[in-house]
């Protein structure tokens, strides 16, 4: 066990997997010589060479489309999109091709492709570089959506994603790259679609993923001081979605709040809330509430950006409405 950053954990996963299987290649803008815009691919170009760690032209649809073809052709590509906001440029390739080819061709072709993309706000990167789009991708059947929070999750989930027969969108958070945590040495595989209780509690379930898990943990500490014992459930991804874990937790706490960094309207919180009410309305002591970003484009201004995205205080306020 070692305490390392999320960046190092992801780098370890990539290094170990590239070493394990020659079919794995990494491609994207500045992933090679420059070692990635966020230095996630540090040392990989030097270790594995330009045949396996491939710098690409600036062409997101091209990167995803070519990676899709390489996956159809028997490789296991990992494509990095510099930020998830640019994944929208490649949306047709992701949604109409990567996510559908296995179905359209009757299972004859597989697309074992991992698309890694950082995202999230808080760094004053402006409206076109700061969003979290996991809720959008959850809408499409045919592609897995994984969003790690702790460094160990990042490593274990990425290694599983790379070995998955399905295409996986692996959405990292830019603010978490420098966050440290304990990561077991060597092989670490965490199954996709298994939520994790990051803090056990009796009074309310805070359902979150990625950076919002930390926000919820912070809120839970504040709530504890006021006598409310919050459970923090880390979904770790949205497809597969571990609804069983949500239902189990809410069955114990009888209250639930979803906490997401992206927009409230059309967000994944609405889907979870609806499913809780469809499945276990009778156990609820209060309506399911949601915490999410304001429905605005991410402001460039520091104060405004912080106002737009959720913080622990917002979660605390919302939780108190349930009691």
């Amino acid at each position, binding site marked *: 066990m070692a305490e390392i950053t999320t960046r190092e954990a992801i780098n370890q996963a990539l290094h170990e997997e590239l070493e394990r299987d020659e079919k794995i290649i990494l491609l994207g803008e500045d992933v090679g010589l420059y070692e990635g815009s966020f230095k996630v691919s540090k040392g990989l170009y030097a270790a594995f060479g330009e045949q396996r760690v491939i710098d690409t032209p600036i062409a997101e649809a091209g990167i995803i489309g070519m990676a899709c073809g*390489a996956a159809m*052709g028997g490789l296991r590509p990992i494509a990095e999109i510099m930020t998830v906001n640019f994944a929208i440029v490649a949306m047709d390739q992701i949604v109409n091709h990567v996510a559908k080819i296995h179905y*359209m061709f009757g299972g004859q072709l597989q697309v074992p492709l991992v698309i890694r993309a950082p995202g999230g706000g808080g760094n004053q990167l402006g409206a076109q570089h700061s969003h979290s789009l996991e809720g959008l991708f959850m809408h499409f059947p045919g592609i897995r959506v994984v969003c790690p929070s702790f460094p160990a999750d990042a490593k274990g989930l990425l290694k599983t994603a790379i070995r998955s027969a399905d295409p996986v969108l692996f959405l990292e958070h830019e603010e978490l790259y420098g966050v440290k945590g304990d990561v077991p040495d060597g092989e670490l595989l965490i199954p996709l679609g298994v939520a994790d209780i990051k803090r056990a509690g009796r009074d309310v379930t805070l359902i979150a993923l990625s950076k919002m898990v930390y926000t919820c943990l912070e809120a839970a500490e504040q709530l504890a001081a006021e006598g409310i014992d919050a459970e923090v459930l880390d979904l770790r991804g949205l497809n597969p979605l571990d609804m069983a874990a949500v239902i189990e937790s809410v069955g114990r706490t009888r209250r639930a709040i979803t906490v997401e960094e992206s927009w409230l309207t059309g967000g994944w919180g609405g889907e979870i809330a609806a499913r809780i009410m469809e499945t276990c309305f009778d156990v609820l002591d209060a309506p399911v509430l949601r915490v999410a970003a304001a429905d605005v484009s991410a402001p460039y201004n520091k104060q405004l950006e912080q106002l737009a995205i959720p913080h622990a205080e917002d979660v605390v306020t919302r939780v108190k409405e349930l009691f």
Partner: protein
Amino acid sequence: MPKQPIADFTIERLSILAPSGQADESLMPDLSDSQLLQLYELLSYTRMADQRALDLQREGRLGTYPASLGQEAAQVGSGFALRSQDWIFPAFRELGVFLCHNYPLELIYRYWSGDERGQQSPEGCNIFPMSIAVGTHILHAAGAALAAKYRGDDLVAAAFLGDGGTSKGDFHEALNMAGVYKLPLVVICQNNQWAISVSRQAQTAAQTLAQKALSYGIHGLQVDGNDVLAVYQATHEAIERARAGEGASFIECETYRMADHTTADDAQRYRDPQEVEKWRQRDPLLRMRRFLDQQRLWSPGDQEQLELTLKERLNRAVRAAESAAPPGAEEMFRYTCHQLSSRQQEQLKECLDGST
């Protein structure tokens, strides 16, 4: 400081077989008499299978269908040059390519009748499923070429598209990638002059489509797309260049869509009948027939026999396609992901309960 030219480009056009059937001996591809006959048989097979599809569509036995009439040489010439180990990424108007590679006609009919299982290539047939989406699959072919190059496999990836497809960003990104990585890729454009109702002139201001290759540092050539020998030779040379590590090629086959875009279209609304008539004079099939006649390789008796054989083959394909059991509800769930979610399992159960 003088202003002077720093680069100079030319675009060549290859033509071997004149509409009269006269071939340029100096450019003749290295093909045996039996291969020449095979080419003609494949052209005929394509035309007859295509016509049968139109007939079936009119009878309500197939869905919307994109006819290949007039484009048989572009399809058969390229398809015949591609080897069995090569990977083919078709658009949706490449019937002749499929038939060159022994893709069962029965499956093609099944696909166009709305059975996606018709897209499943039989073992040993390296044709990837059709791309109805325009131009997006050129990138997939580039990726497959990247995989082949990485593994050192002796194969090229070949992608087909139409003139309209050359306006798509994915096409340009794919050609750029192919140039940067020197990929063993052959992109074959059936420039049939019309993208539904948009003419070739309205599609791009470029003088030729072939010249688009030059922007990406790959080989570009225009071919008389109604000349099966020229298309064959151009494709063959592109494959050899790719195998020699010289990278990708883009071949513009200049042809004409004699039919409507699909059975859901009426080209008379936007095309000049004189233009259609002009292209009728350049028919790719008659041209090859005249050539074989002149070479004394073909007789009216041979023609009669061929038509009988092909008719029987078409009948068998139609019978087989129509006797296939329809797909069940589980088909649409089974391949969404490798494991169904609990919700999908519930949805499948509802579909199955509802259908009983």
